[in-house]
């Protein structure tokens, strides 16, 4: 009887890995530190997902249900791994509830942490109520409340979305592109324009990175069908005149300083390495890559390999990642983990 696979993290990647293993009859233990499965899309209350357009609670909710119903997946919520030892094919993990479990292999699907906007104080988050994050706007939409200014509940007439908040910024030690915020912001701009047709939405960008097919379905569509305006400028500061938020910067295309009044300013927050990565790195003895995400050993060998044989990684634990790609990586890493669990992995692990 083969040993189970240990999956750390119950977001899109972890759910995909558990499901994948179950479909081939392989047992797994899914450990999640929060009290529910679903990861960021569920815990942070995302609205409609890119690119499917499905509500997060339906799309990811469906994945959660599938895993929870499976007899082959043991779900442990509110639990973390405190010790991890052994070799590929024969690991032993001590959980925070005191229990010890055996595992043939492990898949880290520990995800990311949203950038905390208070670390960019010049952009007004935490100082002005109507400066919010993309996550907050997602919640306004997914809760059915609609996009409203938090200060007084009014419908905004003019919204600014600032891209790259917590990304591509050496000042705060975050040099990576968070990959998905451009597309998410274009999508959000369209959702705002759809709900509030009288509200003008401006996106302040340094580059627009709506990669691949997102170019037309998000960037072009937001301009052509929803008349969202894009301004090439990195905002210097967000202040207030007591009534409106004042966005200051340089409109680079006309070389003119701007101080424009807005009702609401949205920070398109980036993806930080999971705050627990140092701890995870110590417990599982895996190396982190220079930005602080979990390092991938090679893209061309075992799928999802880390620096430690038998421990694999998938999803945004490895760096900013889309939900679709996280799911694909979860399935892929499950394949590597499965090989070990079946005992055929001895050679692969070397």
């Amino acid at each position, binding site marked *: 009887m083969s040993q189970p696979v240990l999956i750390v993290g119950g977001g899109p990647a972890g759910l995909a890995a558990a499901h994948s293993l179950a479909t081939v009859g392989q047992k797994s233990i899914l450990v999640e530190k929060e009290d529910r499965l679903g990861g960021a899309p569920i815990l942070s209350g995302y609205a409609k997902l890119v690119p499917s357009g499905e509500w997060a609670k339906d799309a990811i909710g469906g994945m959660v249900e599938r895993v929870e119903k499976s007899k082959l997946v043991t779900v442990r919520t509110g639990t973390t791994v405190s010790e991890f030892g052994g070799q590929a094919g024969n690991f032993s993990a001590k959980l925070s509830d005191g229990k010890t479990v055996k595992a043939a292999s492990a898949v880290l699907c520990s995800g990311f942490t949203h950038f905390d906007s208070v670390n960019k104080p010049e952009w007004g988050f935490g100082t002005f109520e109507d400066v919010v994050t993309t996550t907050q706007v997602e919640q306004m939409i997914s809760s059915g409340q609609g996009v409203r200014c938090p200060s007084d509940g009014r419908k905004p007439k*003019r919204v600014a979305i600032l891209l790259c908040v917590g990304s591509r910024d050496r000042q705060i030690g975050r040099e990576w592109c968070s990959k998905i915020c451009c597309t998410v912001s274009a999508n959000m701009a369209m959702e705002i324009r759809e709900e509030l047709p009288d509200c003008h939405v401006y996106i302040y960008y340094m580059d627009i990175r709506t990669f691949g097919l997102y170019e037309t379905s998000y960037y072009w569509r937001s301009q052509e069908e929803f008349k969202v305006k894009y301004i090439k400028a990195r905002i210097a500061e967000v202040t207030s005149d007591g009534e409106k938020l004042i966005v200051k910067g340089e409109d680079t295309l*006309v070389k003119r300083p*701007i101080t424009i009044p807005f009702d609401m300013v949205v920070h398109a927050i980036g993806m930080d390495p999971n705050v627990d990565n140092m701890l995870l790195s110590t417990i599982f003895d895996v190396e982190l890559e220079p930005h602080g995400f979990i390092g991938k050993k090679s893209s061309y060998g075992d799928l999802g390999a880390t620096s430690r044989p038998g421990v694999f990684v998938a999803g945004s634990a490895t760096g900013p990642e889309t939900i679709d790609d996280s799911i694909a990586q979860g399935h892929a890493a499950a394949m590597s983990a499965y090989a070990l669990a079946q005992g055929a992995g001895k050679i692969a692990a070397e």
Partner: protein
Amino acid sequence: MPIHEEHLIRPENIKTKENLVIDGIDVSGHWSTFIESRVVTDYNEAIEDEIAALPGGEHIHRCWQCGSCTNSCTVNAVNADFNPRYWIYLIRMGMESELLRDKDIIWQCVSCNKCTYACPRDVFPEGVMKATSHWLELKGHTPKSPSMVFDEVFSEQVIETGKIEEGRIIRSFFKRTGQPLMQDWLVEMVKRMVLKLPVKMLFTLGLANFVRPRTSNWGGARDAIKEYAAEKHAEQRQALGLDELVEMAKQEVKPRLPEAAE
């Protein structure tokens, strides 16, 4: 007071008050010189919608400022200030005063449509140039351009008679633009036509100056076109808020009337 690097500042942004006293201190003349801020303090969202409501301007919101139109532009090659990409941006951001600075060159577009073929987003910049010139005229910022007058004379005649009759068009065009009929090039052209054209054709051409040729049964078509044109004009006036402007002006004038009577 001397301003260093004065050439970097637009002359109209340097303000000086002839007579100014602040807190009892006379700061008239150069003592009161100050430089007006170039800061853009608001967006005027109406302008883009107004231009988009005019024929040719419909796709302005698609522009992503790549500059292909300006790079390919015939007029830009001879005058670097002629910059469709830049004007499209000013319109989109509602920077009206900045746009008006170039009101005397925008109409110079020669409608070669090179930009139309270069634009990756199908903005139809040539159409936007046309709509912008039109907008400048309708709003009273520029007089009607000669080419606009020509278009009007031309279309009026076609709508009226269903036919194009060059002699009349040229005569009305010259009349409306205040040009003399006897222009050297025209006299020369007519002379050569008389020498080269077959007699029958000359006769028809000549006759057309006295008997106005018409397409038979044109009346119905004419009325339909006129009605359609009037409808479109009304739509445009409404989009640009022109009738409201007239109303507002009337309202402002009215209250003064009783005063004048007193």
